[in-house]
């Protein structure tokens, strides 16, 4: 057992995979000597060399596009997008290319690449409009892409290793606020966390709150707060957003008969919309109340000024308030 931070787990997962499989390479901006702006590849350059730890030119379409080509010729690339907000110039390479290589070639070619992207905002992040976006809904809508966003340190390591070994493109989202916020004991022996299954983080009976990434932290705290008032919230960590574990979602709703979704992304067409739609479509008979959403405002990402950033984010207060409303319904 070693006590790791989320960031350490990310780094260790890549490190172990690079040691294990020489086909694995990392590429991105500043991943080399600097070890990444968050330090996720710290020390890799010295150990694995410039060819496998590649500082790319400042061009995201290049990062993803060349990774596709590298993967076609026997490498297993881990592409780092410095901030999720900057994946947009690569949108065409991700959506039109990486996600479709297998389908369009009728299975003849594959695209085993992992795209890592630190995302998310909050007052502490001070990221402003372009260093705080949540991009999961935009990409979870894309067939052929897998989208993963771990919350625990254990999952961060196990899911990233699964992503690297996955034969298909995986967008691996790491919430910046989790990097240094939490420490956990993680087994020294190798383990994998499968892409797909969701996890119940807190069993409950009154209602189910679905969340992922940083918002689980706020949601769990809100659940504790209302527990004192006799509201017993089940909190589900979606973890893998695509392919989505609808079975666990529907199972939990059938049990509690009430559901809410918490997400930091803009509310309109954010990921919670799909979760709500699935519930309204497949668990309507079990529902005893509306499917509520607590989400970021519909303004372009998180403003920089603390006062505005705070107004943007879903807070423990807002989440707890919604839990009370739903419980009372």
């Amino acid at each position, binding site marked *: 057992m070693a006590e790791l931070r989320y960031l350490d787990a990310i780094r260790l997962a890549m490190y172990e995979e690079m040691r294990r499989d020489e086909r694995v390479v990392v590429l991105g901006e500043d991943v080399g000597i600097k070890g990444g702006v968050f330090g996720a590849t710290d020390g890799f350059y010295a150990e694995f060399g410039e060819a496998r730890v590649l500082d*790319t030119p400042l061009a995201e379409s290049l990062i993803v596009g060349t*990774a596709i080509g590298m993967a076609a*010729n026997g490498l297993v690339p881990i592409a780092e997008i410095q901030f999720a907000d900057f994946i947009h110039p690569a949108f065409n390479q991700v959506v039109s290319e990486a996600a*479709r290589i297998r389908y369009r070639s*009728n299975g003849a*070619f594959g695209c085993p690449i992992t795209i890592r992207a630190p995302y998310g905002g909050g007052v502490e992040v001070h990221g402003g409009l372009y260093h705080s976006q949540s991009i999961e809904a935009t990409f979870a809508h894309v067939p052929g892409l897998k989208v993963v966003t771990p919350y625990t340190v254990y999952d961060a390591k196990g899911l990233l290793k699964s992503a690297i070994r996955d034969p298909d493109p995986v967008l691996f989202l790491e919430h910046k606020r989790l990097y240094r916020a939490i420490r956990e004991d993680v087994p020294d022996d190798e383990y994998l966390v499968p892409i797909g299954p969701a996890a119940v983080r807190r069993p409950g009976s009154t209602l189910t709150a679905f969340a992922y990434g940083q918002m689980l932290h706020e949601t769990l705290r809100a659940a504790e707060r209302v527990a004192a008032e006799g509201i017993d919230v089940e909190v589900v960590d979606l973890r893998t957003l695509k392919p989505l574990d609808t079975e666990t979602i529907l199972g939990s709703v059938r049990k509690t008969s009430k559901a809410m979704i918490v997400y930091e992304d803009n509310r309109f067409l954010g990921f919670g919309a799909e979760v709500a739609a699935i519930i309204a479509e497949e668990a309507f008979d079990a529902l005893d109340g509306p499917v509520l959403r607590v989400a970021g405002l519909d303004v372009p990402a998180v403003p920089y000024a603390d006062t505005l950033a705070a107004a943007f984010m879903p807070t423990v207060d807002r989440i707890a308030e919604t839990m009370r409303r739903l419980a009372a319904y």
Partner: protein
Amino acid sequence: MAVHKTRVHLARHEALGLDTGDLLEMYYYLALARAIDERMWVLQRAGLVPFVISGQGHEGAQVGVMWAIDRERDWLVPFYRSLAACLVKGMTPRDLMLGLFSRANDPSSGGRQMPAHWAHNAHKIFTTSSPVATQYLHAVGVAYAAKLRGTGEVVVTSIGEGSTSQGDWHEAMNFAGIHRLPVILMVENNRYAISVPTRLQMGVPDVAVRAEGYGFPGIVVDGSDVLACYEAGCEAVRRARADEGPTLIECKVERLTAHSSEDRQEKYRPTSDIEASRSKDPLVVFKHYLEHAGVLDEARYTEIHARIRAEVTDATDYAEAQPMPDPSTVARHVFFEG
């Protein structure tokens, strides 16, 4: 005069180390590509297939450059006009016709993509998409892997001149230059991007001059001169294998048809310009060369074209007779199926 010409010409292909057999095989591929291409348009006009986009006028550039690579070992990252290049790389007339008819056993996409979106795993032809210029980044990625893994492979990719205006083209050129990658970056400049003339596409007459800005040579060749394209290809392959880095080869070619079966080029191309294109038909130019060189006589010509006619007819009949994709397979291969 003819005699003199002949001597000069002979000197040319001999100097390039090409014997009669090579020349006839090259001619065969040019003529085969053209015959398949023309048949495709006939089939489309007859209403047997909904759409065609092809490479008439580009065959000389493609056969010439592709002749310089190792067809087994090297890679092709094509674009939609790469019909002739795909043939040289190993795809058969049947393979191409299966794509035109979008049949279940189309090796490129199983009928999932429009015609001319080439791919063939066994022949190292990477899968083509519609958004232009993306393939340039894939090609340099394949080349980076080849260099890192020390496979000795060379990668050939190609693109139209209009598509060089895309950001991806610049990003790929830059990456190729930084890492001195074993890649041949072709530009097939046919002076039009659908209707847009080069005048509105770029502020310079030749795309090739841009290569210097990335740290490697860019050369301009007459795409109707198959031997000149071959020569350029040989030098580019030499550089690549010697770890001297990439080469941009801009082939000035002619678009002998409308952009695609959806386009009516008369609206934006003066008749004189369309006729000018015909006068630079690589198939005609190469045929003249072979005749002057005494390589192609009546008998051989008849024999080659009879063979081609048979192959094209066989490919058409075969492909047409194949089943369409089974609707129940529509959701397959979104992800790996193990």
